[in-house]
């Protein structure tokens, strides 16, 4: 029996399969599943606002938080019409989506994924009459009059979650499943470890990345590898958080969430987490635009909400039943401290893994410094992937 496929065809089939697999891996979720829904409000002079999400609007995570807030704004601000599109990959597809939203009458667009940044910035420059806001980006340099980025000091509530983890661990090993070694994530890992150290000087954070914002199989492998190391509290910086929570639950370990309050998934293991509450910020931005005062405002820049200013969009999620009252009190007291101006989890002395000083005693890192962080603090076990 011979190999009867003409060789070129066999190669073609294999290449096609490989190509399709690559496309599936890179651009998932496919834009074919994108949905646009319109929510109309009472008449009058109306402003149409578009929200673009990278994942499913019901992902029990990052994108759901955006969606929930967008729907809240549609009812809380009179005259605002909200259109949304989800499952839009971080490619040209986002430009096409912005185009079609403009065709549908949108004057304001919220591009809510980190990787949308270059597309959002370019779109703003090409469409001076449309206001484009990017969630999570940071522009170095001059802002176009119709562009702004916004985010929150995510690492603040993350450090409070780290306190819960450090207080509850018996093995002194905490596990952090992350997606990519971007500075936002590095800040979260460091803040988590610093929070844990503040209540437990022996706490160490083990890190594993998945190179994907949501690949459940890889998340599970990461969680399993961490649990095998003796980790007894898991946390994460992923877009979808169920897998890591389920892994902790199956192993009878604790979990600190991110993006969304998911206590119901694992009431026993859930300690606390960080949950987005975007609605007040969206509302404030939209009202600024409606009053015609956007250009030159704090939103026509890199806006960062903080605990100190009482406008951090990332908040501490409710505590689970496993967190003792004394620890809850301690964490809430620390939250109060962070509420005051000049307070920060990144307050010296802090050393990097290699012992080099990151922050000298008495010094506090600025947001810009934290936003370009590349060093893991002492107590984090593992290295950032070399590139």
């Amino acid at each position: 029996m011979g190999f009867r496929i003409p060789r070129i065809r066999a190669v073609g089939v294999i290449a096609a399969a490989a190509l399709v697999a690559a496309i599936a891996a890179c651009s998932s979720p496919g834009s074919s599943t994108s949905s646009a829904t319109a929510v109309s409000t009472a008449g009058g002079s109306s402003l149409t606002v578009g929200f673009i999400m990278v994942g499913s609007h019901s992902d029990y995570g990052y994108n759901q938080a955006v969606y929930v807030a967008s729907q809240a704004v549609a009812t809380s601000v009179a005259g605002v019409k909200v259109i949304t599109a989800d499952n839009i990959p971080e490619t040209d597809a986002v430009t096409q989506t912005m185009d079609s939203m403009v065709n549908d009458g949108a004057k304001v667009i919220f591009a809510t994924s980190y990787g949308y940044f270059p597309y959002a910035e370019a779109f703003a420059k090409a469409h001076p009459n449309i206001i484009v806001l990017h969630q999570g980006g940071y522009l170095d340099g001059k802002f176009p009059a119709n562009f702004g980025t916004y985010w929150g000091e995510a690492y603040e509530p993350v450090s409070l979650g780290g306190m819960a983890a450090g207080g509850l661990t018996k093995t002194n090993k905490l596990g952090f499943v992350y997606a990519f070694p971007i500075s936002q994530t590095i800040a979260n890992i460091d803040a988590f470890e610093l929070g844990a150290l503040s209540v437990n000087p022996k706490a160490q954070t083990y890190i594993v990345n998945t190179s994907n914002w949501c690949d459940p199989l890889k998340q599970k492998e990461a969680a399993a590898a961490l649990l095998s190391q003796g980790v007894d509290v898991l946390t994460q910086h992923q877009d979808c958080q169920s897998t890591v929570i389920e892994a902790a639950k199956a192993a009878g370990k604790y979990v600190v969430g991110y993006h969304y309050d998911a206590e119901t998934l694992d009431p026993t293991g859930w300690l606390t987490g960080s949950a987005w509450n975007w609605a007040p910020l969206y509302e404030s931005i939209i009202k600024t635009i409606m009053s015609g005062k956007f250009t030159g405002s704090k939103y026509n820049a890199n806006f960062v909400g903080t605990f100190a200013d009482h406008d951090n969009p990332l908040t501490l999620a409710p505590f689970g039943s496993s967190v003792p009252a004394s620890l809850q009190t301690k964490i809430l007291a620390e939250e109060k401290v962070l509420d005051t101006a000049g307070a920060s989890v990144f307050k010296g002395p802090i050393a990097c893994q290699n012992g080099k000083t990151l922050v000298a005693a008495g010094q506090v890192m600025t947001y810009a410094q934290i936003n370009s962080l590349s060093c893991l603090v002492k107590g984090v076990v593992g290295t950032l992937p070399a590139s």
Partner: protein
Amino acid sequence: MNGLEETMIGGIEGGTAILLPALGELIGERAGVINLGTEGCMLVGALSAFAAASVTGSVVIGILAGLAGGAVCGLLHAWLTVIRRADQLASGLVIWFLALGVTSVYGANYISATAPTLAIINVPGLSKIPWVGPILFEHDALVYTGYLLVAVIWFVFYRTQLGLVLRATGERPEVVAAAGRRPAVIQIAAVTIGAALSGLGGAQLSIGYVGNWFNDMTSGYGFVAVAVVLFATWKPVRVLGGAYLFGMALAATSVLQAHGVSVNQYLLDAAPYLITLIALVTVGRRGSASAPEALSRALARTG
């Protein structure tokens, strides 16, 4: 437990989600039909299994629903390609997109839901064997199903009349027809059973190893399964090796990091694909390569 054991245990659990669809695809391709919609059939199986287990509270019903969901997906592909004579590659891709869309819509409510998941069963006696026991015999029921299926498929292929007819259908359907059998019926059955196994692979993700539903949760692993069959030169035992090897390479990327080993990111991400590809191509070159002839012709026609 050392890193090697962790890698092998994680690799077999995760690799099963690739093995089951790959075995299903093997059955279909041996009958002369390739199904690029395997990824989609996995998604349908994953959601059906999760939804059924979540609603009924029974993992057995979940598994049956996963099989049924995959089978429906396979019937559609069989109808399009065998009855309607559609292009096999095009039909498969259409099914993938269709399944991705349909499961995203109908699965939205299950993302925040919980469902019972398969328990880890230690095989009495065998799991006590030092080293080998924990690696091979402390898994969920679908992992053991994978072991058994490889043996059953090998036996049916090479030791039974049914297997002979199936393989003949994949080589020369005309001869099968001349012998008084109906090749179309055999192909429809093979594609449907194969896709049911894809659904079972999806179930291994949603109610087995991972334990939740998320849209597009297969992340391209269905295409990996199709590729494994091609590179394993349509042989059941090699399919098993390829699927587990991919699973282990995937697990190794996490295990290495958890042990604090610094590895190049791009190498780490590419490793599962590279290792599996190189291993199977190397093995494949040595053995007698044997693409089912009807499959070759069906694909050649599309080119």
